[in-house]
């Protein structure tokens, strides 16, 4: 169940083939909104590959609690994280609405990662023009806000727009840091 037809990236030089480019431009300001508890979050629609129901997830050892494990996405094994736990929200029982957003992101080396994110429910696809997005607020430096792309204002409500590569990226960095710390304590012992 693919939410969007991914437009094929057209070469910038081509002037004849404007349609897909327009479409891409149009999609660039579209965000998929979803709920975690009472809050509404959003991710760029271009990063969303599909939305699926919650399937059986196999836990992975030696990973932080918010890594739910791996699941079988039509023959491909993908890691699944729980966004609730990632953002330190209390865990809840899965409901009928609970689903997995399959996200695609590429890191700085251009390597693609496909990953599932468990959310309470998905809402809708919303148009949020750049003018309606405010930079992330400053809470002081204690809270890492790298994964918040901005705050979208829609109908007087605020949606936290997530930078998904950062959500995973910071997780990776964190893990590397953990592993390094573990190694150093082991060495110290």
């Amino acid at each position: 169940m693919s939410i969007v037809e991914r437009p094929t990236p057209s070469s910038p030089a081509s002037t004849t083939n404007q349609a897909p480019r327009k479409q891409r431009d149009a999609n660039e300001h579209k965000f998929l909104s979803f709920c975690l508890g009472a809050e509404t979050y959003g991710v760029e629609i271009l990063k969303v590959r599909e939305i699926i129901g919650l399937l059986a997830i196999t836990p992975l050892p030696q990973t932080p609690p918010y890594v739910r494990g791996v699941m079988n996405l039509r023959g491909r094994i993908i890691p699944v994280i729980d966004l609730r736990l990632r953002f330190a929200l209390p865990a809840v029982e899965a409901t009928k609405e609970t689903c997995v957003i399959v996200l695609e992101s590429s890191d700085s080396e251009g390597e693609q990662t496909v990953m599932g994110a468990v959310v309470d429910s998905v809402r809708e696809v919303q148009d949020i023009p750049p003018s309606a997005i405010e930079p992330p607020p400053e809470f002081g430096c204690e809270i890492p806000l790298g994964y918040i792309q901005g705050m979208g204002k829609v109908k007087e409500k605020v949606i936290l727009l997530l930078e998904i590569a950062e959500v995973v990226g910071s997780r990776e960095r964190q893990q590397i840091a953990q592993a390094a710390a573990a190694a150093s304590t082991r060495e110290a012992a």
Partner: protein
Amino acid sequence: MPLRGAFAFTLRWFNASTPADIDFDKVRTMSLRHSINQAAKAVVLTDARDLPGLVALQDLLQSITREAQTRQASEAAASSAEAAELVEQIVLRQVADVEQAFLRLTEAISRLDETTPEDGANAPSLSNPNSGRTSVDRDLIAAWVSGCEATIPELEHLAVACEDIAHAGNALADVKRRIHTFKGECGVLSLDCAQRLCHDTETHIEDALAQGHFPVDAVLALADWLRTLMAELANDPVAAEPDDAHARAALRAGFGCDRATAPTPTPPPAIPAPIDDGCAIELNFDAADDNLADFVTEAREHLANAENSVLQLEKNSNDPEHVNVIFRAFHTIKGVAGFMNLVPVVRCAHAAECLLDRVRSGTRNLDNTVLDLVLVASDILGQLIASINGAPLPSKRSVESLIVRLELASDGNDAPAQPPSPNPSTATGTAAPAAAPLEPPAISAMTASDPNARVAAMRKGDQTVKVSTLRLDSLVNEVGELVIAQLMVMQDPTITAVVDQRLQRNLAHLGKIVRDLQETSMSLRMVTLRATFQKMARLVRDVAHKAGKRVQLVVEGEDVELDRNVVEEIGDPLVHMIRNACDHGIESAADRRAAGKDETGTLKLRAFHSGGSIVIEVADDGRGLNRGRILKKCVERGLLDPARNPADIPDSEVWNYVFLPGFSTAEKVTDISGRGVGMDVVRRNIEALRGSVEIYSTPGEGSVFSMRLPLTMAIIDGMIVRIGTQRYVVPTLSIERSFRPLESDLTMVFGKGELVRVGEQHLAVHRLKHVFDIDEGVDALSEGLLLVLESGKRRACVFVDEILGQQQVVIKTLGARESLRGVSGGAILGDGRVALIVDVGGLLEEAASRGHDRLQRTDSRHSLKEHMS
């Protein structure tokens, strides 16, 4: 030794019949020509030790002599009589050098073949050269043709290497031997024309060498012609042999075939500048350059275009546009390569471009030499460019000799075969009559047969398609998914509850199709071991030669297919094992004689299927492993309790010590029980392939090294184990045994570490639930199962709830970038859920380090307590 051995080997290798298959009695009643063919065959197949075969051959030759005498063919009779006498000498061991005698014998029979008049109407005649072959087994020809696909390029390569005689070294002898082998093989297969051509080429090589140069062009022409022949035979094993006029023209042009009438040939221009000794050229490039990849792809396209144009030109050489295409291809490659500073590429492309420029401007005729050179240039450039991606570089010699040949050709003074055209103003693009004055039919024969053959070869090439391995892998994966999906449907309770015959029948049908599809998709990645084994044949020859031993290699099962990845990985272990077997296993000829064995050692390399895996064995009939020495060494190195009675130690355990790293180095000094050199490498490589290696050895009778390998890397045979509700896959190969422990066998250490007695050993117990932090599963050891796992040096027990069953699973990556210790991947089980595949090595390491941590923590607590008290 090598000549006869190689000879015998080559033939055995293409499954030729043994001498015993030749029914000499029957032969006698047949035509004289047939008898001679049989004799030629027997000569090639018979070994110096094969007395019955030799005696039969002698009989045959004598009968030929009589027959020839009755037909008053005195020359033939004389040759035959000479051959018969030689055989007799060999039988009676009156010859000093058996090899030499066999060579002379072969020559005598060739002479006999040439001088024999055609007999009767039923005899094969020149006008119908293939009728003699109807009796030859088609399979034999097919096998030969497929073998030649590899040997002809080798011949060409060697020939080019010989161009510089001063540095040719072994290559020279090798070329001669190969041509001789071809001759023998052609004789066996009744390819008369080919046999004669080989023979003539041999003669010419001798003549040319006497004059101090090597007739590269003649050999290359022979190779080209043989390739044409292969193309014909591949299509139709009894096809007529193609016209050899072109190849003969090359022979004659170079050396004046008819030495009686032809003027002394002008010595060909000596290849200037003895080429540098280094056999590898250097290609410096900046691997990080992004343009490089584009260059490689583009250059390949250019070369493909150029080659295509060459083929077009061969068919119809009137279109100057094709020349332009080729020119442009080389020019572009030169330009871009210059930009990237790829010097050898620039030089080759430049030389080729110069030649083509001469052709374009009309100062050089476009003839076959040019086209051949362009193809060679394209090949070498292709190799150079491929090396950017990590392929081996072509030898410096081949590059340099190509450049020289190109330069000579563009000077209009190219190969000796091509004197400058008498009329250089002949327009570009017309069929070049360069060779015409010497051999008018050559051109027509060339244009008629050669392009056809090339086209046929291309068409044949079309039957196989190059596919990127990525696509292949994804296909295999998807089929794997299909199998799982199909299983899920079949096992669905709703489906199984339905008692509808039609549905069940259709489901069964679906199942069959899916299984077939899976088999086919798996076979896509499969390649035969043939190429690997062939390399080993060469290795055996070289090692045996160096060690001064006589070793005969017997190969079996080279058609066994394995996953491409596996085949790529077993080369190294095989080399080690074979080198060991030749070096240490097989004794010297003198020792063998003393031991009452045949002086020639036999090395058997065989591959066969055995229960879902492939077994590759290297067996020698040498002295076997020296048990006593290994044990002594073990005690010296403290690997073995000296108190143990050596007689109680099972052989398998003793042989296992050979694999220990470092064991070999210690043994190197001794000359007898060595046999450990590189064995740890062997074991590690094989274990990396999820295989195992075993040794069987009997003192004085030899040893067998047996590798058991999985058919593919994509699938493993796994045990599905359960902990609580979770399932894990443990590779079956790593499980030594599993058992439910008895309370009495368990020991606690420090209240933390647990040990269990397995046989005479105490093994540490690791609970999978602890290592993997699983919250469920049984705790009491007596309620679950212990698996004895082994990986490398580590051996330990791992505790699980139960074993659910054994299953083949497709290995998948987990998609997570960081790797997890103790987990090598995931597998999708029949119900669609993911089970993690346990990496036994990593698991045991992780478990050990955790245990270590725990013990340390306990230790520190102890010390703290002591401190406080």
